[in-house]
């Protein structure tokens, strides 16, 4: 799903890039023209935020919980951050490998401007390695291995304006690894009246998360399981920091939705779903939407079947029984579990088919039948 700018678009956005002069300058070398393809040695290296020196030319990254300690000329586990002579650089600031206009339902956000389009962008790289990654061809590669083009934050914001979309979305791979780009894009977008959403694994340290949250309209977190063993074996990450990030996002008052990809035999037991939904209700509140989505075999997990519909329905029932107000099923176009239903009177408020909104009956963010306020970002 890659979008390359044509010459005209790139020229138009070049003007926007002039505004980018307020941004931190690249580490060295020229600034690539907006929209130009980026090659291995032309990656727009910029000094990273959130790291510290360990002396003797070594650095420690403080962006995600892995806390990589990186020797000179080496990279962190995400492959997009490099130690150059004792200074840590990000190689993906402005290096967009995927740019596409998507419905916001595709993220999925079901409580954010239903039916709106979002200019969605990503760079290469990820800080975990899910064996079931749907986007592994960009997330599991280093930036020089993936065709990218230079789209600095102002150019992205200008492109969103030009396309007439109200939202930007950092998505597809893992926005945590391009967090400086997310931060600066969200700021640039805010200046032109566009809001920014993030689709993330939530595997991030608290300080960088807190620093960027004020610029975001909504965050969707993939809670991949409620078991640490799953995180260690199939994700190469940890559960605890993700739960902490969910609490931080909620406490900051930024709109939050959670997606749980249900993988047969791996994370679909009744006990685990019950634990998960109970925790969400007790810790984050019953109004946080939870989406149970269907797994399709891919990447290194090709020997399991797609998730049975009954499993998704059972998970949804458990979530509702545990007291969550908004529990959806996903990757199941046409299922009634895609609709937003008023928890007060049971009226269907937003009717969906896949990523399409067929009907939106919300009136100023409330149920038109019983008047109950429905939480979300509606205007």
């Amino acid at each position, binding site marked *: 799903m890659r979008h390359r700018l044509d010459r005209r678009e790139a020229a138009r956005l070049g003007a926007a890039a002039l505004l980018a002069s307020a941004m931190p300058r690249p580490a060295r070398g020229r600034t690539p023209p907006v929209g130009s393809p980026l090659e291995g040695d032309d990656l727009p290296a910029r000094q990273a935020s959130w790291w510290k020196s360990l002396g003797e030319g070594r650095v420690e990254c403080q962006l995600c919980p892995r806390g990589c300690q990186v020797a000179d000329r080496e990279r962190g586990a995400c492959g997009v951050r490099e130690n150059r002579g004792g200074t840590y650089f990000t190689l993906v600031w402005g290096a967009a490998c995927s740019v596409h206009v998507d419905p916001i339902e595709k993220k999925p956000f079901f409580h954010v401007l239903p039916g709106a389009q979002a200019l969605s962008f990503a760079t290469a790289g990820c800080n975990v390695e899910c064996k079931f990654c749907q986007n592994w061809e960009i997330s599991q590669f280093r930036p020089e291995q993936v065709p990218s083009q230079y789209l600095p934050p102002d150019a992205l914001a200008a492109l969103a304006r030009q396309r007439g979309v109200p939202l930007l979305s950092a998505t597809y791979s893992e926005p945590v690894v391009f967090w400086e780009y997310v931060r600066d894009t969200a700021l640039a977008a805010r200046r032109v009246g566009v809001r920014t959403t993030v689709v993330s694994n939530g595997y991030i340290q608290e300080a960088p998360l807190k620093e960027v949250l004020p610029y975001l309209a909504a965050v969707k977190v993939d809670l991949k399981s409620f078991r640490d063993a799953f995180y260690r074996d199939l994700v190469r990450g940890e559960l605890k920091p993700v739960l902490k990030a969910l609490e931080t996002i909620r406490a900051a008052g930024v709109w939050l939705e959670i997606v749980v990809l249900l993988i047969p035999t791996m994370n679909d037991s009744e006990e685990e779903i019950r634990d998960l939904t109970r925790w969400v209700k007790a810790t984050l509140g019953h109004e946080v939407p939870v989406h149970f989505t269907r797994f399709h075999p891919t990447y*290194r997990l090709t020997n399991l079947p797609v998730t049975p519909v009954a499993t998704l329905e059972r998970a949804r029932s458990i979530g509702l029984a545990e007291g969550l107000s908004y529990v959806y099923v996903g990757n199941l176009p046409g299922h009634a579990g895609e609709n937003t239903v008023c928890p007060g009177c049971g009226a269907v408020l937003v009717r969906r088919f896949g990523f399409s909104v067929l009907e939106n009956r919300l009136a100023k963010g409330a149920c038109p039948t019983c008047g109950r306020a429905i939480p979300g970002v509606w205007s």
Partner: protein
Amino acid sequence: MPRTLTRRELARITGLSALVLPWAGRAARGGQNTFRGRVGVAKLAPPAAGGALDPALARTAVARAIVAATGAASARVALAALFKPSDTVGIKLNCLGGRHLSPHPELVEALVQLLVEAGVAAERIVVFERSSRELQRAGFVVRRDGASYRCFGVDNDYDPTPSTSGAIGSCFARLVSTTCSALIGFGVVKDHDLAGVSASLKNWYGVIHNPNKYHDTNCDPYVADVCNHPFLRDKLRLTLLDGLVAQCHGGPAFRSDATFPLGVVAASTDPVAADAWAWRVIDAERSRRGLPTLAAAKRAPRFIATAARYGLGVGDPAAIQEVAG
């Protein structure tokens, strides 16, 4: 119902060990041309700063190291036993250290020449690294065609799908998976901040698309897992190490205050033994300088023992037989 999977069940379901199982029970790597635990070492002083090696001296050192490693009557005989004329031979260099800490081009040229004399056509020899740019920085000329040997980087030419070996899941360079029928590792002797040692086995991180994912826990078992993949296990026949200058601390990047003139070229048909030997050499220099051993510095190259357990060679530094060439 709660279900807690055992590791074995998990592996069965995820297929993570699917590729390992078919050869897990096979006999240890080796055969009549593998001299386990034996490392041949030939002396060769490093050139003066900025200077080039004398090609004749380079050739003599490479040949002597190979003879010492194999006990053959000559390097030509040794190489003819290891490589068939029908082989396409890939020589993987480690050029991350730039001009100061990469295999000397004169040594690589000497190896190519000896291979040609052993019957492998020059155009069937590919000298390669992760990227062409790294080769150029280390003083090599990139060459993709012509009558001479090839020399170029992987440059993103990987298999389209990942394959699994133990804990790693990676797309391998097509040069390794498909193009070459036989491989030679040509590394340097250096300390590695995370792995402990980067000489023989660690060099092969350069043929997978995602080495950055596998630096936890001193790269163990990941380095061994990469080398236990059939692409390497079945094709890697010889390892050479440019030890003219070695580095005992601060690697993998070049660090002038941590290098020392070791003054040798090493060769082995046992890639694990080559690493065990390098570990011994690095620790000896660290002791001489009053630095803690790699084990004391909490970065013992544990992947060496893992590779030995996989049957890839001899991993105990004390068990290495160093044969002077």
